[in-house]
C-alpha cells in the first residue's frame, strides 16, 4: 500500500481510514444530483463521444458520500459529512484512450466533457503505440449492492458518537500507563452508474467502513512510547453499521491497549534468523505486498515503472516459477462476501469472478482487465478495472487476493506448540517493499518469543526482512479454515494520479522457517 501523506508541519496525524468527501442526505445538504435522468445523460455523453469519432466510450456517473467522526481521548473533535456528484467519460479514438471528468452534470456539460475526452485521445495519437482493444464480455445490465444490514447513513449522529466513544473509553479505562487514544469512524458510499457504447448499463453501490482506534502507551519518565490499533482486529469491510454492534469494538480497544502497554516493557529483540508463526492479522498485508502486487499484469508489463514499480514475476514464469512451498494456494476473488474488492461488475462491465494465482506453490495466474486480456491471450480477462471516483481514470486494481487455509486440521496453538524457537507475530505494523517486490520488511503490533513450543516473553523493536519468493517457499505449516481471517485496507495507493483502492486479503496462521529478524534500532 502506497498511500502516505505527511507534511513537515501541520498534518492531521490522526487515524482516519479514508477522507473522500461526502455527506449524508443529498436533499438537505445540497450537492444536487443531476437535474435530468441519469440514463438520459449517459446517452448524451455516449452520443457526443461517438459523434466526435470514438469507437468505444463509457459514461460513469458517481455519487460519493462519506461520513466521518474523529476523536481525541474521550471526546469528538471532528464530525463531517460529504457528498459529490460527478461524471467521468472515457473514449477510445483510433485505439487511443482519452478521459475527461467534471462535477457539472447538466446536459451541455456532459456533452462537452465527452468531446473533451475525444479531443484528448486525438491529441495523444502522436505518442500512441499499441492499439487499445477490449475483450468481449456479456452486456452488463442490472443492479448490485454490497451486503449490509444497517445503512450507516441512516444512523443518527448521536448513535455514531456513542459507538466510537465506547471504544475510546474502554481503552482509556486501562490506566496502567499514560494513554493517548485517537479514534476514527468512517463510512463511504460509492454509487456508480455506468453506461457504455456496447449497450451496458449497470448501477452499483459499495458501502465500506471501519471503526478504528489508535492507542499510544506513554512512559513519561523514560520518554518511551508504543502504539497499538484496532485495525488488525476489526478490519474495514463492505458492511453496514452492524459492524459496531455488541462489544467487539470495545474488546478490540482493550486488546490494542494491552498490546501497546506490553511492548513498553518488552525485551529488545536479538537480531537473528527465527522461525516465524505469523497470525493472519499481520500476514494479510504480507500477502498483499508480496503476492498481490507482483501478480498484477500492469506491473509485470512495466506500465507502473515510473512510480509503483514493476515485478520480479515474468509472464514466462507462468506455470514454472515455484512461488512458494506446495502448501501455498492463492486465489484472486471478486465475489467474496464483505471483502473490499468484491464487485458485481468492474468499471468495464466485467462480472466479478474468481481465479487461481498460485496453485500448490506454482505461479499460475495474473490479474487482468478486459484491455489486458489480449496481452496474455485470455478470452475475457478478469474484473480488474476500478476508479476511486468519478474524477479518476479506471485502471487495473487488485481483487481480494487470499492465501487458502490448510487442508490438514491444525490450530495456531498446535503450530506454536510444534515450534522450538521462534516468534509469534500479530497485528499490522509498518510495511515496506522494493519496487520489484523482492526485498520486504514488515513490523507488527505484538511479538512474542516462542521457546520449546511455548509463548514466553514479549519483544520489541522487531521487524522481519525477506525476499518474496524465499519467504513463501519457507512456509511449512498452515492453520485450517477455522482460523481464516480477512484483513484489509480502504486505501491501497497506485497509479498517477494516485488512486486509493479498497482491498481485502484472507489468510490463516502460517509458519515460515529461518526468516531474518532485525532490531530496527540496530540494523
Amino acid at each position, binding site marked *: 500500500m*502506497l498511500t502516505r*501523506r505527511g*507534511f*513537515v*508541519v*501541520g498534518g492531521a*496525524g490522526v487515524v482516519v481510514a479514508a477522507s473522500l468527501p461526502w*455527506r449524508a*442526505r443529498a436533499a*438537505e*445538504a*445540497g*450537492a*444536487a444530483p443531476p437535474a435530468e435522468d441519469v440514463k438520459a445523460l449517459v446517452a448524451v455523453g455516449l452520443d457526443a463521444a461517438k459523434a466526435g469519432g470514438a469507437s468505444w466510450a463509457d459514461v460513469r456517473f458517481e455519487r460519493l458520500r462519506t461520513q466521518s467522526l474523529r476523536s481525541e481521548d474521550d471526546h*469528538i473533535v*471532528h*464530525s*463531517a*459529512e*460529504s*457528498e*459529490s456528484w*460527478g461524471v467521468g467519460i472515457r473514449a477510445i479514438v483510433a485505439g487511443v484512450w*482519452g*478521459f*475527461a471528468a467534471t*462535477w457539472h452534470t447538466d446536459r451541455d456539460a456532459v456533452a462537452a466533457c465527452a468531446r473533451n475526452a475525444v479531443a484528448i485521445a*486525438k*491529441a*495523444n495519437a502522436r*505518442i500512441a*503505440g*499499441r492499439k487499445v482493444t477490449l475483450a468481449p464480455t456479456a452486456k452488463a445490465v442490472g443492479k448490485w449492492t454490497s451486503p449490509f444490514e444497517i445503512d450507516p447513513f441512516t444512523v443518527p449522529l*448521536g448513535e455514531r*458518537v456513542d459507538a466510537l466513544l465506547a471504544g475510546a473509553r474502554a481503552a482509556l479505562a486501562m490506566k496502567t500507563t499514560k494513554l*493517548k487514544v485517537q479514534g476514527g469512524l468512517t463510512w463511504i458510499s460509492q454509487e456508480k452508474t455506468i453506461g457504455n457504447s456496447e449497450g451496458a448499463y449497470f448501477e452499483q453501490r459499495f458501502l465500506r467502513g471501519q471503526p478504528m482506534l489508535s492507542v*499510544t502507551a506513554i512512559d*513519561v519518565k523514560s*520518554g518511551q*512510547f508504543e502504539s497499538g490499533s484496532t485495525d488488525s482486529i476489526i478490519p474495514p469491510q463492505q458492511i453496514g453499521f452492524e459492524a459496531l454492534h455488541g462489544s467487539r469494538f470495545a474488546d478490540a480497544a482493550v486488546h490494542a491497549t494491552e498490546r501497546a502497554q506490553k511492548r513498553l516493557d518488552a525485551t529488545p529483540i536479538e537480531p537473528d534468523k527465527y522461525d516465524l508463526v505469523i497470525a493472519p492479522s499481520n500476514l494479510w498485508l504480507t500477502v498483499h505486498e508480496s503476492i498481490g502486487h507482483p501478480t498484477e499484469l500492469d506491473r509485470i508489463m512495466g*506500465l*507502473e*515503472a*515510473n*512510480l509503483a514499480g514493476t515485478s520480479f514475476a515474468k509472464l514466462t514464469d507462468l506455470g514454472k516459477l515455484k512461488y512458494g512451498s506446495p502448501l501455498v494456494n492463492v486465489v484472486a476473488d471478486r465475489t467474496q462476501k464483505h471483502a473490499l474488492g468484491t464487485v458485481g461488475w468492474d468499471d468495464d462491465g466485467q462480472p466479478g469472478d474468481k481465479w487461481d494465482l498460485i496453485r500448490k506453490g506454482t505461479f499460475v495466474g495474473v490479474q487482468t482487465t478486459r484491455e489486458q486480456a489480449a496481452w496474455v491471450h485470455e478470452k475475457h480477462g478478469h474484473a480488474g478495472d476500478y476508479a476511486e471516483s468519478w*474524477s479518476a*481514470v479506471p*485502471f487495473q486494481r487488485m481483487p481480494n487476493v487470499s492465501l487458502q487455509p490448510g487442508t490438514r486440521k491444525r490450530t495456531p496453538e498446535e503450530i506454536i506448540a510444534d515450534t522450538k524457537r521462534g516468534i509469534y507475530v500479530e497485528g499490522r505494523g*509498518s510495511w*515496506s517493499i*522494493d*519496487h*520489484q517486490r523482492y*526485498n520486504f*520488511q514488515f513490523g507488527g503490533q505484538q511479538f512474542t518469543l516462542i521457546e520449546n513450543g511455548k509463548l514466553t516473553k514479549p519483544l520489541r523493536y522487531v*521487524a522481519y526482512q525477506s*525476499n518474496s519468493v524465499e519467504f513463501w517457499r519457507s512456509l511449512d505449516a498452515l492453520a485450517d479454515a477455522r482460523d481464516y481471517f480477512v484483513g484489509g485496507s480502504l486505501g491501497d495507493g497506485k497509479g*498517477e*494520479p494516485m488512486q486509493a483502492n479498497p482491498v481485502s486479503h484472507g489468510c490463516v496462521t502460517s509458519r515460515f522457517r529461518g526468516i531474518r529478524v532485525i532490531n*530496527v534500532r540496530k540494523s
Partner: protein
Amino acid sequence: MERPLDEGTARAAVKAAFEAVNADDVRVNIEASETGFLRYAVNEVTTSGQVTDATTTVTCAVGPKHATVAIHGVRPTDVAAAARRALELARVAPDDPEYVPSPGAATMKPVTAAWSDMPVGPDDRAALVADAIAVAKKEGLLGYGFVRDFRVTEVAATRRGFFGIHHGTGCDSTTTARTSSGDGSGWGCAGAVAFKDVDLAGAARIACDKAQRSRKPQPLDPGVYPVVLEPAAVGGLLSMSMLEARTADEGRSPFSKPGGGSRVGEKLFGSLTLKSDPWSLVVPSAPFDNEGMPRPPVTWVEAGLLRKLRNSRYWAKKMKRAADARYDTSLPTGPKSESLEALIAGLERGLVVTRLWYIRTVEPQTATVTGLTRDGVFLVENGKIVHPVNNFRFNQSIIGMFADAEAYSAPVRVTDEGGDPLAAPAVRCKAFRMSSRSDAV
C-alpha cells in the same frame, strides 16, 4: 488565463453560507481546480485526462459543538443547503472541549509568484511527453513518466471576518528510463509554476544517463556508509517529519523530552535550517491555511537548533502560546549551498543515492524510517563515481541523518510519491544505515 474560481463567485458562495444559518461561527473553504495529466510507459501514452472539480466545505459551530459538511460545487443554493445541514449536525454534536473560535480578519500579501497565465491543453502535454519519449528512444531506452498540470483557487472565509483567496498553477513531472534488458534504471523530475518552464526532456536526459550508468550494478554489502542523497531522496525523508508541538508535549514524538515537555531549544539537526515560507519561489503556496490562519514565514530549525514546533489553535490556547498555521511546504537549507558535484567530490568513500522508495516509520521514538534506494546508486571513491552498485533497504533515523549531515546544496523543486511538489536540497551525510540488499533494478 481565467482562474478556476473568480473572487466574485467565491464571495457569493461564502455569503450564501453565512446568510443561510444563524450559527455562532461559520467557516467556508473552497477548492476549485482544473487538472490535466498524461501518463506514459514503454515509450507510449497510457492514460491522460482533464478534470474540473470544486469542493466547498462548510463548518458551523454552536457554542463548543461543531460539524462540517462538504459538497462538490459552488452554487449558492447548494452551499446554503450544506451550511444548514452542518448547523443541524452541529446542534446534535457533543461538546468539543478542543473547539476554538475561528480567526478574524487579517491582511496578507498575495503570493503572486504562484500563478502563471499560460494555458495548457492536451496538445501541450502530448508535445512535452513526445520530446521526453524521443530522448529515451534516441538512447535506445524505454521511457516512462507522468506529467500533471494544475490551476487551483483556494478560499478560506470565516464569519468572524477572515477572507483569503489564493490562485496557484503548477506542472510537475517525473520520468524513468529503463534499459530493455532491465539491468539499468534512472529517474528525473522537473516542475515549475509555469508549464513553459518544465524541462521534462532535460529530466529525461538525466534519467537516461543514470539508466545507462546504472547497468550491471556490482554487489556491495549492507552497512553504514557516508552518502550523498540527491534532492528527491531528501524530499522523501522530509515528508515523514511531523514537527507538532502537541505530540511532543504529550510524550509521543521524537521531540518529547524524557520526564515531560519537548526538546525545543536542543540542537538536534546538525547544521540544518528549516523554514516555511509561502512566498518562496521554489514552491510557493497559499499565504493562509484552511482554518483562516495567515502563514507568515517561520523558522522551525535554525542551524540545527529546534526553534519551535507547530502549535494548533487549540494546543496554543491550552499551553498559552501563539498559534501557528498549518504549513504544507517547507524550505530546508544548510549553512551554505554547494553543487551536487561538490558534494560528491567531498566523499572519500561512499554512495550517491538518486531517490528513495516506500519510506515508512519503523520506530517513532527515534524517527527511524525504513525504505529502499532506487533508480541509481553509485559507489564513490576519492570524490569520483566509480561504478553502480545494488539497491539497498535502509533503516535510518531522520534526526540522526541531519545530525550527521555535513554539506547541502540549494533546495530545488522535486516531486514526491504523490506527484506533489516540495523543496529539498541534496545532502552529504557521514553515516547512513543500509540494512540489506535489494535485488530490484
